[in-house]
Structure formats: structure tokens, C-alpha cells
């Protein structure tokens, strides 16, 4: 057909490629279009984006998805021929250009997402969560294409155009060789797609335009990479977003041609609150970033025990790992949300995402506020048993956050973070400065500084340690000290000097014999004398303790107590040595279960021995940070727990609700079992460890709720329970409620709905009441909207008898018109709680 208004030929077609017009089909189409002199455009009628038919990149950016209608226009000398060829190609050959690709297997899936995020599922990147918290901001790629200042010179258009042309040709030649050598059709297809991108006219136009504007060739390439990368990543299509990787690869090759094969992108500096994205980071790289601007970390590497992960966790920085190619997917300067608790990274432009996370932010703030009353003070159990809750930290910069989260002290300062990934050990003065700052920040709160804990698993290049066959059973912790005495003495001097500034204590890692302790104390005594002789002040009574990480030390606690002031259970290593099971070997990691009755017996024996000798004993392993097993630790009668700072408020809240007496009985029972699963079942079902909370509470009543629909009303109720600390996993709770709604609506008519569930997510049986400002459609039995929502939440395990009685009485009363009228007329939450309590004969 000939268009009336212009002199162009045009036709429309509907894209029936299942993955949309992504790079491979687009490159075929561009090949055909490039065979003619006539210019052609493709317009996506869904979004109005128009693209040059000769440019793969431009077509990809048009984001043509399956089902989109597109308009193709041809204009120019050979337009008639071009028109016919293209039309027949699009209708006949294009659909065959898309062989199915293996879908990447994400770590999470749309099913595990909260309902409100499902619509954004296609944008979500699923990784492994390593810390909690949600943060939003622009990405900064560490290790991305940043042109080092040294080579970033002014541009000379003529010279740079020439340079760029040469680079383009050289990369093209390289690819041609690759193509000729391709072993398989798949491999060849990838190289062909790269070639198409390399020869893309939009790409070339963009590059040469930048050079014309006086931008030097290398910088033009890096800017183009950023520009097209962002363009592609904005697509809703997974395959198109992946092409950002290709662009980056091509640009890196071009830069190598321009600057020579040794080209290394520059290090980055944060200029605004940012989320750092990297393949992996060295601790020094992380520590070098401005902490006030570092909001989140996204890593491609999935190493959960890497230093940087431990650091990020102890710094309380939201961090997600295990996202392959994240630095290319996300690129520089893209606004994303890092939802570290769920292990998600979501571009914040996706519909609904911003709204969802704004709401999350409000809920979390209210939850922290509710937790605040626990974090600001020392905590004790309901029966008056006090326990100190400290923080594990990896750098001096973390102290401030630790105390903000309510740490009673620092239970573990991992000093090795100051030593790793450097060319030489930090000097005495550099260390002293850090320890002194820490002491000052802590005020009168204690700080336990662990001396250097380094070994085959975390080697230091400058110590020239021999590689070991089995580093976890090798030269680590205190075992390396005799060979590296100067390193140790330097640290001891720095710690002792700082001890004059605060309540510093020192702790030894990896002790397995009394001899090691005696040797260490000998060195310490030398250093003390040396300082004294130089009239340097230090705390002469500084306490010295040890980690209990080896079974040998565990069995020797009574003897070690003659030389040491305190102990700390390092359950991460202690459990792997106890069970002979490597924590990092996924096949056997499950064997190393700290809830194993044998392990609990061992812990109890260690704690009892320490107490008998009047020595303080605490725990600083991962075990301390898990709320579910807190009753066991309280049952052990530990003096202190130390965990990542961010966990402290929740730990204190839980401890404050536990009965120490019941926890002790629980532990006695647990150590008589034969398996960890029995202990876990006991933990889940034992009511007495946590005296029941009343079903009704003022905090669970939301009158005049702004909820607009059923989804929001359910979320609002779940949030109220979460803020009150009555549920653990909000998403799980919501899912359980929706699963029930799926059977049939809980709208029972007369303007009432009773969503309910029995779920593992529930930690305290509860009745929540929500009265929306405006009636809500609920799919009720009588078709009427809902004016009052009554949520019934029941724990999965345990004896719910008493509470179920109340639920059933409430359910029956709801059949009574006067009762319903009384509820509907209530306008004071406190009054409502007491009235309802009386009517249902429930304690409030």
C-alpha cells in the first residue's frame, strides 16, 4: 500500500516472536534492511517508539514484545524492492529467527514474591540475601568501564575518529576469526549477534557524534556503553536486557584496542548516596568507600563467607549476593531497590515497585520504633534474668551503628579486616588510632578485640603463608603467632595503648591448648613491660579471654580458666570441628547443626565449667543471631550474646519475652533427645518458654484505616501484627491468608470479613481488627462490601486450645446482629479491646 501523506511505502505486522524482537531476530532484520539503499523505520504502535530498521540497537530499544503491532515504513531509491523483500521476510522468515533459549534459573521466583511485587516479577533479580534492610538509590559499578584519569585526555576529533575506526575494524577482524572458528551453531549465533551490534549504525552514529563534540575516543566508547546499556536494561524483555552484557563486552574490546591490552577501568568514588554493584569486592575496597554514601551492596559472587559479605553484614549494609553479571545488568546510575531481606534487586522504575517499598519503609520504621524501647536498655527475661547483647563488628566505622542499634558492648571486633587485601600489615599507630576511636565511641561499654585471626582460608599475601591442603585444619588464628611475632607484638602494643582510652578486652582465636595461652601471655607480658618502660599508659588490668572454637578448648575450659578471664563460644568453627562437617560444603553443611542435642550437651558442659570457675562466657557465632534458637542460649545461662548489630533490637525483644526458667527446662529436655529435628520441634511447640501474649491488643486495632481494597486491607493487618512483633515472616503470613481466601472469600456478609490462617509465620496467636474508612469489596457471601475486617492468626505448632476457644466464641458471636452492631459502632481502640475481651471472656 502506498501511504497518502508521505511518499513512503508502509505495512503493519504483529510480532509473534515469543521473546519479542530481541537481538538475534533484530540482527537478521537489520541485515535484510541493510541490503537496500532505501531508509526504513519500524514503529512500535504500543509505545510509539520509532526505530531505524538498519539498527539492531534501535530496534531493540523499541521494546517490541510478543503481540505488539508495528508499522514499517520504507522510503528511498529502491523502496519498492526493499518493501517487498522486507514484508516477505517479516511474515515468512522472522518467526523462525528465534530458536528457544534456555531460561536462566533464578535463585528465587515470582511465587516467592509478595503479591504487590508480582507485577514487577519480570524485572526482579533474585540473589541470595546476606543481610536485612531495604534501600533505594542509583547504582555505581565498581569494576565497570570508568576511564582512568591518567588516560582521559582532551579529544581531537580527527585523531579520535581515526583511532575509533581502527579499533572498530580490529575488533571486527577478531570476531571474524572467532566466527570462523566457532565449534557450534549456538556459538556462531552469539558471535554474529556481537558482529551485528558492532556494526550497528545507531551505535556508530552515537560514537562518532560524541567524538565530533570533542570527546576523546576511549571516553566516547565508555559513554556509549553506558548509554546503550541503560537503554537495553530498560526493556521488559529478559533477552534484550541481557544484550547489555554484549554491549559492555564489545566496548571493553574497543577500549583494549584504543588503550592497549593492559587497559584497566578506574576505581570509583561515590558522589551521592549509592548502591555499589561489583563482581566481588575486596574488604579494603569496601572500606575505602564513603560510608555515609554507601547505601547498599550487590555482588555477583555468591561466596557467603567472603570477607566483604561478613563486613557488609556487620556494618548493617543491605547486601544481596549471587547475581551473575549484575554489573552489566544494572549498569551505572540506574535507580534500583535493594531488598536485602528477600534477596531481591528491582529497578525502581518498574510499576508499583516504588509504592510497595515506600510502604515497606513506613512499616519498617514503625517496627524499629516499636523495637526501640528494647534496644535502648539492657534486657532481661520476664523472670528477671539479665543478658548482655553485644555487636559483632569488622571495622571501627561500624561502632556508631552498633550502638545506635542498642549494643550493650562490642562482643567481637574482628581485627583481621584491617589486615586483609593490603600489601603490608597496618602500622602500630594506624591500628592504635582505630582501636582508640572504637574505645571512645564505646564510652563505658566493653569492647572485645579479637587478635588477628588469619589462616589458610583467609591468607595475607605479605605473610607468605604456604598453601595448605586443608586450611580449616591448618595454620590459623593463634597458631601463626609464633612465626609472625612482630605482627602480633605490633597489634598487642596498639591494643594495650588503646586500653587506656576505654573498656578494652582482648580475645584469642583458635586456642586448642593451655600451652598456647601461656605462650601468648608471655608475649603479652613482654609487651606490657616494654610499654611500661617507655612510660606509655595502658590498662594493666585489661581482661584477656579466648574463643572456644575447638573441641579441645571446650573440654579444657576449667584449666584454661586459670589463665583467662572470659570465654566466647565461636559456634561457627566449633560446630564444624565438632561434627567434622565443612560449613561451606553444601553436601554436608546440614550436618553441622547447632541444634543437635550432642552439640547442645557439649555447649552446656563448656558453659557449666566456665561458670563453676566464675568466668564470664558468651557466644559470638552465627547461632547468636538466630531468633528461633534464642531460648536454647538463654537456657544455657550465657552472660552475653554477640550478633550483627542489625539483629540486636529483635534479639532484645525476644529475650524480654522469654522465661529463663522455662528456657533452662527446655534445654534440659533438648539435650536428652537424639536428633536435631526433635529439638527443632520442641522449640516450635514449647509454649512455656514464652508466656502467651493476650490475643487482643490495642496495637492490633486499626480504626479509620486508609486501605482501599482487599489486598491493602490484608497487608495493613499483617503489618500491624508485624509491628507488634507477633509474626516473623510477613510474606509467609500474607500468603497463608490468601491461600485461605482462595478457597472462598472470608467475607461472611453483613459487612464483615474474617480472614484467618494457621501459619508458621505467626509467633503469637492474635486477633486483629481493621475498620476501613470506606467499605471494601471482599467478594462476600451477600455481595456487600466490608466495613470491618477481623483477622484471626493462629500459630501452627503448640497447644492453641485456650485461644481457639476464644476464636470459636468470636466466630459464633459474629452471627449475632447486636454483637456486630456493637463492633461497628466502636470508635475507641482501647475501649474496643476491653469490651471485646469481656464479651469473649479473653484476657487482654
Amino acid at each position, binding site marked *: 500500500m502506498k501511504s497518502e501523506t508521505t511518499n513512503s511505502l508502509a505495512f503493519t505486522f504483529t510480532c509473534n516472536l515469543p521473546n519479542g524482537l530481541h537481538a538475534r531476530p533484530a540482527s537478521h532484520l537489520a541485515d535484510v534492511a541493510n541490503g537496500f539503499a532505501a531508509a526504513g523505520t519500524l514503529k512500535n504502535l504500543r509505545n510509539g517508539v520509532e526505530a531505524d530498521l538498519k539498527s539492531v540497537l534501535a530496534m531493540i530499544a523499541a521494546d517490541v514484545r510478543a503481540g505488539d503491532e508495528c508499522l514499517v515504513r520504507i522510503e528511498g531509491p529502491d523502496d519498492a524492492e526493499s518493501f517487498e523483500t522486507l514484508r516477505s521476510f517479516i511474515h515468512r522468515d522472522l518467526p523462525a529467527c528465534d530458536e528457544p533459549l534456555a531460561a536462566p534459573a533464578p535463585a528465587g521466583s515470582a511465587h516467592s514474591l509478595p503479591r504487590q511485587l508480582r507485577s514487577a516479577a519480570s524485572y526482579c533479580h533474585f540473589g541470595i540475601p546476606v543481610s536485612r534492610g531495604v534501600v533505594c538509590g542509583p547504582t555505581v559499578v565498581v569494576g565497570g568501564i570508568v576511564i582512568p584519569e591518567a588516560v582521559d585526555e582532551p579529544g581531537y576529533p580527527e585523531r579520535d575518529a581515526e583511532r575509533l575506526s581502527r579499533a572498530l575494524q580490529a575488533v571486527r577482524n577478531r570476531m571474524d576469526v572467532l566466527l570462523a572458528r566457532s565449534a557450534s551453531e549456538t556459538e556462531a549465533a552469539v558471535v554474529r549477534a556481537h558482529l551485528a551490534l558492532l556494526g550497528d549504525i545507531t551505535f556508530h552514529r552515537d560514537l562518532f557524534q560524541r567524538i565530533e563534540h570533542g570527546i576523546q575516543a576511549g571516553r566516547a566508547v565508555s559513554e556509549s556503553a553506558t548509554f546503550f546499556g541503560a537503554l537495553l536494561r530498560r526493556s521488559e524483555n529478559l533477552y534484550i536486557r541481557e544484550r547489555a552484557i554484549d554491549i559492555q563486552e564489545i566496548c571493553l574490546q574497543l577500549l583494549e584496542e584504543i588503550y592497549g591490552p593492559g587497559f584497566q577501568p578506574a576505581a570509583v568514588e561515590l558522589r551521592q548516596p549509592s548502591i555499589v554493584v561489583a563482581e566481588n569486592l575486596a574488604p579494603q575496597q569496601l572500606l575505602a568507600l564513603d560510608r555515609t554514601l554507601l547505601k547498599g551492596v550487590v555482588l555477583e559472587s555468591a561466596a557467603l563467607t567472603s570477607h566483604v559479605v561478613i563486613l557488609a553484614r556487620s556494618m548493617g549494609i543491605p547486601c544481596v549476593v549471587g547475581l551473575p553479571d549484575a554489573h552489566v545488568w544494572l549498569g551505572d546510575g540506574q535507580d534500583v531497590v535493594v531488598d536485602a531481606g528477600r534477596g531481591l534487586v528491582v529497578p525502581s522504575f518498574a510499576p508499583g515497585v516504588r509504592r510497595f517499598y515506600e510502604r515497606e519503609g513506613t512499616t519498617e520504621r514503625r517496627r524499629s520504633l516499636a523495637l526501640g524501647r528494647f534496644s535502648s536498655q539492657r534486657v532481661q527475661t520476664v523472670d528477671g534474668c539479665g543478658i548482655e547483647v553485644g555487636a559483632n563488628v569488622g571495622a571501627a566505622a561500624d561502632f556508631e551503628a552498633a550502638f545506635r542499634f542498642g549494643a550493650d558492648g562490642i562482643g567481637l571486633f574482628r581485627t583481621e579486616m584491617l589486615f586483609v587485601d593490603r600489601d603490608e600489615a597496618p602500622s602500630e599507630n594506624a591500628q592504635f588510632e582505630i582501636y582508640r576511636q572504637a574505645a571512645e565511641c564505646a564510652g563505658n561499654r566493653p569492647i572485645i578485640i579479637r587478635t588477628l585471626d588469619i589462616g589458610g582460608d583467609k591468607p595475607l599475601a605479605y605473610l607468605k603463608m604456604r598453601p595448605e591442603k586443608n586450611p580449616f585444619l591448618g595454620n590459623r588464628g593463634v597458631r601463626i603467632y609464633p612465626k609472625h611475632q612482630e605482627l602480633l607484638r605490633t597489634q598487642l602494643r596498639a591494643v594495650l595503648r588503646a586500653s587506656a582510652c576505654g573498656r578494652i578486652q582482648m580475645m584469642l582465636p583458635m586456642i586448642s591448648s593451655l600451652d598456647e595461652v601461656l605462650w601468648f601471655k608471655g608475649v603479652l607480658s613482654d609487651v606490657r613491660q616494654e610499654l611500661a618502660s617507655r612510660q606509655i599508659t595502658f590498662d594493666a588490668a585489661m581482661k584477656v579471654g579466648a574463643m572456644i572454637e575447638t573441641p579441645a578448648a571446650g573440654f579444657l575450659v576449667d584449666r584454661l580458666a586459670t589463665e583467662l578471664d572470659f570465654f566466647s563460644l565461636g559456634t561457627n568453627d566449633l560446630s564444624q570441628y565438632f561434627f567434622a562437617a565443612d560449613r561451606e560444603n553444601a553436601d554436608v553443611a546440614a550436618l553441622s547443626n547447632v541444634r543437635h542435642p550432642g552439640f547442645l550437651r557439649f555447649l552446656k558442659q563448656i558453659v557449666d565449667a566456665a561458670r563453676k570457675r566464675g568466668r564470664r562466657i558468651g557466644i559470638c557465632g552465627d547461632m547468636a543471631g538466630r531468633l528461633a534458637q534464642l531460648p536454647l542460649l538463654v537456657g544455657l545461662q550465657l552472660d552475653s550474646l554477640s550478633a550483627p548489630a542489625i539483629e540486636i533490637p529483635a534479639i532484645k525483644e525476644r529475650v524480654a519475652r522469654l522465661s529463663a526458667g522455662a528456657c533452662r527446662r527446655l534445654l534440659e529436655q533438648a539435650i536428652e533427645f537424639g536428633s536435631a529435628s526433635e529439638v527443632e520441634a520442641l522449640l516450635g511447640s514449647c509454649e512455656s518458654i514464652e508466656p502467651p501474649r493476650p490475643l487482643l491488643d490495642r496495637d492490633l486495632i486499626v480504626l479509620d484505616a486508609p486501605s482501599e481494597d482487599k489486598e491493602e486491607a490484608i497487608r495493613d493487618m499483617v503489618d500491624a501484627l508485624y509491628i507488634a512483633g507477633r509474626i516473623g515472616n510477613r510474606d509467609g503470613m500474607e500468603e497463608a491468608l490468601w491461600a*485461605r481466601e482462595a*478457597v*472462598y472469600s*472470608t467475607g*461472611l*456478609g453483613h459487612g464483615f470479613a*474474617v480472614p*484467618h*490462617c*494457621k501459619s508458621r509465620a505467626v509467633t503469637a496467636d492474635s486477633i486483629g481488627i481493621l475498620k476501613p474508612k470506606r467499605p471494601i469489596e471482599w467478594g462476600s*457471601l*451477600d455481595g456487600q462490601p466490608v466495613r470491618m475486617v477481623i483477622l*484471626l492468626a*493462629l500459630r501452627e505448632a503448640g497447644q*492453641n*486450645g485456650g485461644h*481457639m*476457644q476464644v*476464636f*470459636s*466464641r468470636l*466466630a*459464633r*458471636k*459474629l*452471627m*449475632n446482629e447486636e454483637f456486630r452492631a456493637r463492633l461497628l459502632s466502636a470508635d475507641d481502640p482501647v475501649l474496643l479491646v476491653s469490651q471485646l475481651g469481656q464479651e469473649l471472656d479473653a484476657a487482654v
Partner: protein
Amino acid sequence: MKIVAVTACATGIAHTYMAAEQLEKTGKALGHQIKVETQGAMGIENELSVNDIRQAEAAILAADIEVEKGDRFDGMKTVRVPVQEAIKDPKGVFARIKG
């Protein structure tokens, strides 16, 4: 008329009891003598005895799941309805006994 009934919903937290209440209330209002057994999260409550069942002329089974010991009602005039129907229209449920 003497009637026995069982209510049982999927989770046994709310609807079992709402339906029981509706059947008891409506049954009495209609002049029936009715006993309702609930099969909910607390297990079987107000269990129907062999005598209750023998003396009854009809049984109402308002259940979304399989009623436990359902064979007790074999050979009786039985009305089976989903739980929500007993909540929404209890009169209609009783009407079905006659029909």
C-alpha cells in the same frame, strides 16, 4: 423435628463455628430440636452420640472437607451443603430436609 448436624471447614478456625451457630439458632427458631457437632481446629466438639443420631430424623452435614466418621449417618436422610451455605442461608438448608 429432631435434627443432628456436623460443621467442618478447611482451616477449622472460623467458619465451622459460624455455621454451627447459624444452624443451632435457625433450627431452634424453626421449632426443631437440633444438636450440632463441630469438627474444627480443636478437634471434634459437642460430639453426636449414637443415641443422638439414632433419635434424629435427619442430618445436616455442612462441610468443605470430608466429615470425620461420616458413616454414622449412613441410611439417614442427609442434607449435604458447603459451610458457607449454612452461614448465608440456614433457613434454606432446613427447607431442603423437607424437600
